């Protein structure tokens, strides 16, 4: 989550869901929290009951809107314009929390005089290279300061700072204090003034033209947020994939982060930016990553050319100040966890045995690689890309180009069955006998059939215990990978090949339990926690060393197994402990529930107010204390000034709460860490029915387009054929189903609740296109056409954008041809077009057409449907 990483230092939600109950105002945007996070939504309801304003902003009126005190309807894909309007209103009217902004953010820092804004360049920042379609970001730096390019510039489009984005190395400044500051925030090149100019054109009237939200509501939103911020009150933002799934998604999150920094809402109870994750342990799967470009704990994956030596790797990725200054301790402890005795100082702790990346190996590049036969085999676990990935039709065809495919799942999903049960087979575009892919289906154990942990939305690690043995051949992922590794190692045993040392020297000695020889998940957790020189579990990442005497599978999880106890398994009821509930599970880092919580006190260490006290400086004991684990060096006084030569956390001042950043501040302006700009800019979605009313530059220039014959993009407004796709399409989830449907469409009790794919349209659009409630509609883009049942509802309503009436079509994306709840896959409609920072596809805003009736192939095969509209 680079939006959060670049803003605050860590790529995780800044708060925890229970804390939403302490908020005075909750803005839910880019999230349908009541439907997609119903259990956590109880804390929003609690806040509402206590009198908080709950504001839902969304293209659709959803179950979340129904629970909110206010609802604003906006055009899909225009969120930055609205948030920019809020920022502008705050800055033009002096509504910012001045003391917080001055001391805790980089508002005062002077930026390099070579920096040029989108104001100067009609929608581009300085140093855009049109032939490479990337920025050289050096001019975005603090004046007279070298900003380290934390992950190199090694991929198409450039991914400088990608790791920063996820984890927080954004602040790789070459020393702790910015060289030039204006404490009065008046220097024309200080961040505060740059920000003010940058957002000055986001006036309420312009925002209305872009978003469809009336100007008065834009002002009302900004005023309501400001009224509920400051010393006595706090406001929170809640978002989910409604923000991330855009070609400029990371900057959506940046825009909210800027608002929260300006209003002083980060690190304080009832404040923050709550990133609701897509499903169970998604946070965990970036912490201990399933991503190609990072190692556990957000350490960059070494590159084949650039990261030849350990020494150079450690130099490049350690920062001077802040806790990333100890990166060598984290990394060498990781190498020791993996290669144990074989990792020695002499062999660079087996650094050369780590795999290397050479280019973008993200999910969609893999799909294209399958098409181009450079990727020959695929192991697909816990995912149903045949319906769950953008341009799913291309993905299914790509699977037909594989030599082999392994699918591990509970059910024979669309991915496992693509070779005989798919739209392509049904339509006659592919024939089973022509598909050469050898498909292996391996049944997976469910969560009730195995022990392990979830790391959920608020970085909270919670243990679950096995309830029953898995049936038949069903096995856990842990079992599968452990025994796969064991068998590979047995086959390689005795090999003299250097290339096999990486596998043969691994520490692969997990104890197994029971008849099926299930590896002990607790032993894995202990390895992740790490061991000290005495062989005992370490208690904190500050105990890790860079000399090989400690081992640790993921430094941010240090402490989860402190004292040899599985702290993730704690389940003390909230009624029996303090507000932060520190003894329910365990949260990284160091069991802190609100991150950057030093900011809940003023620069002298006193709570901003009694009502919002959380963590404060106790001069008597000389320690930070309070309701939560202080997210600060516990005995560093608020007036601490770093002496010359101080490094890492000791190079930061005692009044700088963002301890993962190289300058200890929240970043209103991100001098590094993001590839598409230091500040958010309203760009139109890749497919949009209107021009960019703000700038000549229409869409995010750095977006990844992956244009291919089977991945065409709908013509943009002004291009030939744009009028073929006059409506906005947005996709989403329902409470009743889970992502690609493997866990819900095949379960009778869930499937009956939403048994068929449908599209939601307004009565106005239904009238315009002749759609009948309960009938059929065909929805088309340049990728595909699919059919769906029609749900006509007042919850959908056209928006007025730049004087035009614009209709939006909503579709839940869960469906596919198998299971009890069936339908075409809406992902067939979407293009592979991605945000450049995180390679996430734009599923939330595209263009489409809608007409009544079933799709052509269906009509050809079965004849017209009587009475089906």
């Amino acid at each position, binding site marked *: 989550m680079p939006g959060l990483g670049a803003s605050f230092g860590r790529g995780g939600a800044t708060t925890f869901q229970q804390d939403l109950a302490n908020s005075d105002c909750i803005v839910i945007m880019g999230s349908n929290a*009541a439907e997609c996070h119903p259990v956590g939504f109880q804390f929003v309801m609690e806040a509402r009951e206590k009198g908080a304003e709950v504001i839902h902003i969304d293209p659709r009126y959803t179950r979340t809107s*129904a629970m909110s005190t*206010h609802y*604003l309807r906006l055009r899909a894909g225009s969120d930055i314009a609205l948030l920019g309007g809020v920022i502008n209103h705050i800055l033009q009217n002096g509504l910012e929390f001045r003391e917080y902004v001055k001391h805790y953010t980089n508002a005062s820092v002077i930026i390099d005089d070579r920096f040029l804004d989108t104001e100067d360049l009609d929608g581009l920042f300085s140093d855009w290279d049109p032939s490479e379609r990337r920025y050289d970001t050096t001019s975005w730096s603090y004046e007279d300061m070298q900003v380290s390019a934390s992950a190199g510039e090694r991929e198409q489009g450039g991914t400088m700072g990608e790791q920063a984005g996820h984890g927080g190395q954004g602040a790789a400044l070459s020393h702790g204090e910015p060289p030039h500051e204006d404490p009065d925030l008046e220097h024309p090149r200080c961040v505060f003034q740059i920000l003010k100019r940058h957002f000055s054109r986001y006036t309420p009237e312009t925002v209305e033209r872009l978003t469809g939200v009336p100007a008065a509501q834009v*002002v009302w939103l900004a005023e309501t947020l400001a009224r509920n911020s400051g010393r006595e009150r706090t406001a929170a933002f809640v978002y989910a994939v409604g923000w991330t799934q855009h070609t400029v998604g990371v900057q959506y999150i940046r825009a909210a982060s800027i608002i929260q920094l300006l209003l002083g809402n980060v690190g304080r109870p009832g404040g923050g930016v709550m990133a609701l994750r897509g499903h169970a342990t998604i946070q965990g799967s970036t912490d201990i990553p399933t991503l190609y470009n990072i190692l556990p704990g957000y350490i960059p994956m070494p590159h084949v050319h650039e990261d030849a030596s350990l020494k150079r790797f450690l130099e490049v990725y350690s920062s001077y100040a802040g806790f990333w200054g100890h990166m060598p301790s984290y990394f060498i402890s990781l190498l020791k966890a993996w290669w144990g005795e074989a990792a020695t100082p002499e062999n660079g702790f087996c650094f050369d045995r780590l795999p290397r990346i050479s280019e973008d190996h993200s999910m969609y590049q893999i799909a294209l690689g399958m098409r181009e036969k450079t990727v020959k085999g695929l192991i697909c676990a816990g995912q149903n890309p045949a319906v769950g990935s953008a341009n799913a039709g291309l993905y299914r065809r790509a699977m037909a180009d594989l030599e082999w495919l392994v699918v591990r799942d509970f059910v024979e999903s669309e991915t496992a069955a693509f070779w005989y049960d798919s739209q392509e087979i049904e339509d006659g575009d592919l024939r089973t006998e022509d598909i050469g892919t050898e498909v292996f289906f391996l049944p997976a154990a469910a969560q009730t059939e195995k022990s392990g942990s979830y790391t959920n939305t608020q970085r909270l690690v919670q243990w679950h215990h096995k309830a029953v043995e898995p049936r038949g051949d069903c096995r856990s992922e842990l079992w599968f990978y452990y025994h796969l590794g064991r068998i590979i190692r047995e086959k390689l045993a005795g090999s003299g090949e250097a290339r096999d040392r990486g596998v043969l020297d691994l520490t692969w000695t997990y104890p197994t339990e029971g008849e099926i020889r299930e590896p002990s998940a607790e032993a894995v957790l202990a390895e992740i926690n790490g061991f000290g020189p005495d062989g005992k579990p370490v208690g904190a990442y500050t105990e890790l060393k860079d000399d090989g005497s400690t081992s640790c599978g993921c430094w941010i999880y240090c402490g989860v197994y402190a004292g040899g106890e599985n702290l993730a398994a704690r389940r003390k009821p909230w009624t029996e402990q303090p507000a932060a509930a520190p003894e329910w599970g365990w949260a990284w880092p160091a069991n802190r529930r609100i991150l950057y919580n030093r900011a809940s006190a003023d620069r002298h260490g006193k709570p901003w107010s009694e009502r919002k006290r959380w963590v404060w400086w106790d001069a008597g004991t000389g320690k930070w204390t309070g309701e939560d684990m202080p997210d600060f060096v516990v005995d560093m006084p608020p007036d601490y000034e770093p002496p010359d030569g101080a490094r890492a956390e000791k190079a930061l001042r005692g009044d700088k709460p963002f301890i993962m950043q190289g300058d200890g501040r929240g970043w209103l302006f991100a001098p590094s860490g993001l590839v598409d700009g230091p500040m958010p800019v309203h760009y139109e979605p890749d497919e949009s029915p209107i021009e960019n009313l703000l700038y000549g530059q229409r869409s995010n220039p750095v977006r990844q387009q992956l244009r291919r014959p089977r991945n065409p993009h709908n013509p943009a407004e002004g291009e030939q054929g744009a009028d073929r796709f006059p409506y906005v399409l947005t996709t989403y989830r329902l*409470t009743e189903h889970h992502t690609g449907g493997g866990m819900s469409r095949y379960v009778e009790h869930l499937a*009956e609740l939403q048994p068929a794919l*449908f599209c939601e349209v307004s009565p106005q659009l239904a009238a315009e296109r002749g759609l009948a409630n309960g009938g059929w509609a065909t929805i088309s883009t340049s990728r595909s056409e699919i059919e769906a049942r029609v749900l006509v509802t007042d919850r959908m309503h056209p928006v007025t954008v730049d004087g035009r009436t614009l209709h939006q079509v909503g579709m839940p994306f869960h469906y596919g041809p198998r299971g009890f709840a069936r339908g075409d896959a809406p992902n067939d409609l979407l293009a592979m077009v991605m945000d450049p920072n995180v390679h996430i596809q734009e599923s939330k805003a595209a263009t489409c057409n809608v007409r009544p009736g079933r799709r052509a192939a269906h009509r050809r095969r079965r004849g017209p449907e009587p009475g089906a509209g």
Partner: protein
Amino acid sequence: MARIETESWPATYDGAARERVGFFTDTSVCIGCKACEVACKEWNLLPEDGFVFTAESYDNTGALGSETWRHVAFIEQDVPLIETAGDGDDDGNPMRWLMSSDVCKHCTSAACLNVCPTGALFRTELGTVVVQDDICNGCGMCVPACPFGVIARRERDGDGRAWKCTLCYDRTKDGLTPACAAACPTESIQYGPLDELRERAAQRLQSVQQQGFAGARLYGEDPGDGVDGFGAFFLLLDEPQVYGLPPDPVDPTKRLGEMWGAAAAAGAALALGVAASLLGRRG
């Protein structure tokens, strides 16, 4: 001990009666997640009710029945959720989306139980109304008797026996919370001693009205209503009929006495007439 006594509870239990329990369903905090429907089916091993897309908002199960013992209604209306005054956020298209989880009312005067000829329906020691599936013979007399249309016969088993919510008798008798209430993430479904629930509901109504929810009311809390009060009652945000609930439910058997009286009077009048005519003839 709850004050709301039924004909057979606690009287017929001697000392074995326990506190009368029930549900208070507070629809003002229902988020329409349907976890209650699913938890109910999982615990009670109920089959699916058909995979039918109804195009009726987000409701695809339709109504309570023999296979659906909790049912969430979805009602879309063009009125605002909360009456707010001039804060500038009215977009000219006010709307609200009411959601409400319906269930058997476990009436104090329960018609289904009163008409059951086999004794399959009975009043438990907890004051709830339960069908015993091993006694029910599928006669179906309870079905038209219920003023809410809750109890229904299950045809797919071939014997047409009647089924409905048991208030999770197999959980509650052991001190557990019913499955639906346990699964509800927002405490919209509250389970407990009926007396406590009524007190809580009265306070809750006050608070909801203060928050500006137009039309908030309690439904089924009045022991003076046509079923002598519900064992499972509701806080609604609009009139009951908006949710598909009868505004003035009456246990039809309550009028049996009256009807017997009328029948007796009619019989007596008839007898008198006959006697008079005979006497007259004699005369």
